[in-house]
């Protein structure tokens, strides 16, 4: 697992381009195994009805069942079948046996998520083709319990409605999230080992625009297309041939993201235009029209809380370095993923941050919090502070702004 998959892929692509095709060594291609039955029956539905597409094991990023109880109060929280809904929207894809669809979920920590995949018999999942799931040809449903994917979750609005837009580049036509490969048709020259064997990849753009949305316009193949968002959530899903300019990128936000989307219209005549994946600067399009987001008043919350003492204990860490463990009692409860405490540590003699982290779990008021910073080697007095922060529209990472709960210091000998 790389930290910057976008860079690995672009480096590989760029290097490949520099090597003449004749001089390029060829690595083993992944085996191609198309289910034989696919040529015998007309549609995937027919295949499924006759049992030709069989149900495989659920697609999970780790083996075993999730510890739902433990994960319900941490990170993004957990989803459950009761809080998930497969939307009726279907999009055909000439490169896939099954249509694409969307499933929305609400997590135990107050977030809303959307996921795209292939649909079979009312379930969202991936197919075991193109090198995924050992080419078993089975349909592997996405789990409806456990932790949601990091991609595709945002805070709900203050009325509990979900507005979200997500994009994923280079998604295999199998729809599997476990194996990102590269389509030769999209990228031209890439190492064969990185290819999705015998198939193309897709760039997918999907989300919920809200009930007021009346149309979405996007550009593909040099032509503008307009679609009507579906259902009460204003759902949309674009499944497009992978664009070589989109290098395995993913994005999630409240408003449409992705180069192809150029315009969304809403009831009442409001038109939000996008250029290069970004909205034109106008305030009524910066959040989804029809949504209401109210940030909790963190200052007011803290003002009513009793003062809390923050301690910083120094101990020997690994590699002959030191660790500082910061502890405090939560002055304000953290009931969901919308707020958290962030803890910053500064180097001796400088206000610059050594590092920062945040609590990613529900906390009761008064509950003890302990966070450790390790590998400190510079002697001197480290200073730091704890803030109460709120989560912006994107769930990845918390902003470090927010009222200060308290400060601490620790001396490293």
């Amino acid at each position, binding site marked *: 697992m790389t930290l910057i998959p976008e860079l690995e892929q672009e480096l590989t692509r760029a*290097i490949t381009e520099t090597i003449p095709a004749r001089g390029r060594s060829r690595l083993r291609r992944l085996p191609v195994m198309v289910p034989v039955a696919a040529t015998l029956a007309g549609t995937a539905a027919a295949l499924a009805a006759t049992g030709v597409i069989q149900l495989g094991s659920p697609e999970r990023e780790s083996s075993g069942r999730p510890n739902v109880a433990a994960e319900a109060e941490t990170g993004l929280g957990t989803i459950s079948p009761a809080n998930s809904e497969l939307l009726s929207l279907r999009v055909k894809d000439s490169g896939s046996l099954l249509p694409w669809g969307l499933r929305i979920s609400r997590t135990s920590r107050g977030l809303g998520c959307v996921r795209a995949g292939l649909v079979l018999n009312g379930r969202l999942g991936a197919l075991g083709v193109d090198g995924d799931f050992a080419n078993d040809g089975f349909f592997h449903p996405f789990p409806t319990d456990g932790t949601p994917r990091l991609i595709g979750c945002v805070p709900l609005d203050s009325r509990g409605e979900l507005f979200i837009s997500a994009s994923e580049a280079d998604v295999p036509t199998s729809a599997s999230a476990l194996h990102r490969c590269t389509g030769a048709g999209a990228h031209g020259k890439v190492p064969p080992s990185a290819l999705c064997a015998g198939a193309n990849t897709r760039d997918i753009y999907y989300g919920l625009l809200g009930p007021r949305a009346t149309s979405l316009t996007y550009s593909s193949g040099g032509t503008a297309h307009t679609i009507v968002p579906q259902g009460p959530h204003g759902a949309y899903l674009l499944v497009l041939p992978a664009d070589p300019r989109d290098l395995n990128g993913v994005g999630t936000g409240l408003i449409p993201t992705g180069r192809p989307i150029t315009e969304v219209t809403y009831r009442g005549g409001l038109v939000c235009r996008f250029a290069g994946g970004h909205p034109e600067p106008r305030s009524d399009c910066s959040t989804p029209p029809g949504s209401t987001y109210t940030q909790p008043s963190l200052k007011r919350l803290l003002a009513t809380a009793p003062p809390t003492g923050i301690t910083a204990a120094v101990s020997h860490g690994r590699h002959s370095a030191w660790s500082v463990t910061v502890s405090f009692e939560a002055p304000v409860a953290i009931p969901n993923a919308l707020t958290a405490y962030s803890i910053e540590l500064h180097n001796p003699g400088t206000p610059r941050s050594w590092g920062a982290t945040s609590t990613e779990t529900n906390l009761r008021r008064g509950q003890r919090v302990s966070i450790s910073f390790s590998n400190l080697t510079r002697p001197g007095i480290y200073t730091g502070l704890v803030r109460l922060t709120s989560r912006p529209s994107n769930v990845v990472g918390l902003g470090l702004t927010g009222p200060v709960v308290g400060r601490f210091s620790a001396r490293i000998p």
Partner: protein
Amino acid sequence: MALESAPDDRLLKWSSSTPEAFAVFYRRHERVVVAFLGRLSRDPELTVDLTAETFARAYRARAKFDPERGSARGWLLGIARHVLAASREEGRVETEAREQLKMQTLRISTETLSSVERAVIEDGEMVVEEWLNALPDSERDAVRRRVLEDASYEQIATELACSQAVVRQRVSRGLSRLRRTVMEEQ
């Protein structure tokens, strides 16, 4: 020999005809380079930019890598420090090596930035300290304050109770020593 288990010098050599060899090299050293640059730049987006230029330069200079003169890790960190220093001087990250390779601008996900932040918090300090371990104490302190913390020569001189000329000399010697030790890019 499988790519994944091949030594670094082989991977660099093979990458002239097999791009996947450089991908393996990248995966092997990415975390250290990210932690190092992230610790020094303190900005995840800048870290990605610096990392991209560092690996592009490493690919360009692959023929100069000599395993008998030092590890690939040290060699990469030397290149990384050069890229960082140049970016501080010019106020922007150089793109020369990436342009030569005709690399496209990356569209980085928030998920990736989050991973980078985590890696820096977990390993940044340790990687930088290991890098500095090749120096005697006096040079290490001066290099650390100047290169890592952007302190002025005047400030360092006051802290170390010596003249600015001495600080400059220690920083210069320290960086030269690191260059020799880690065989930075020529």
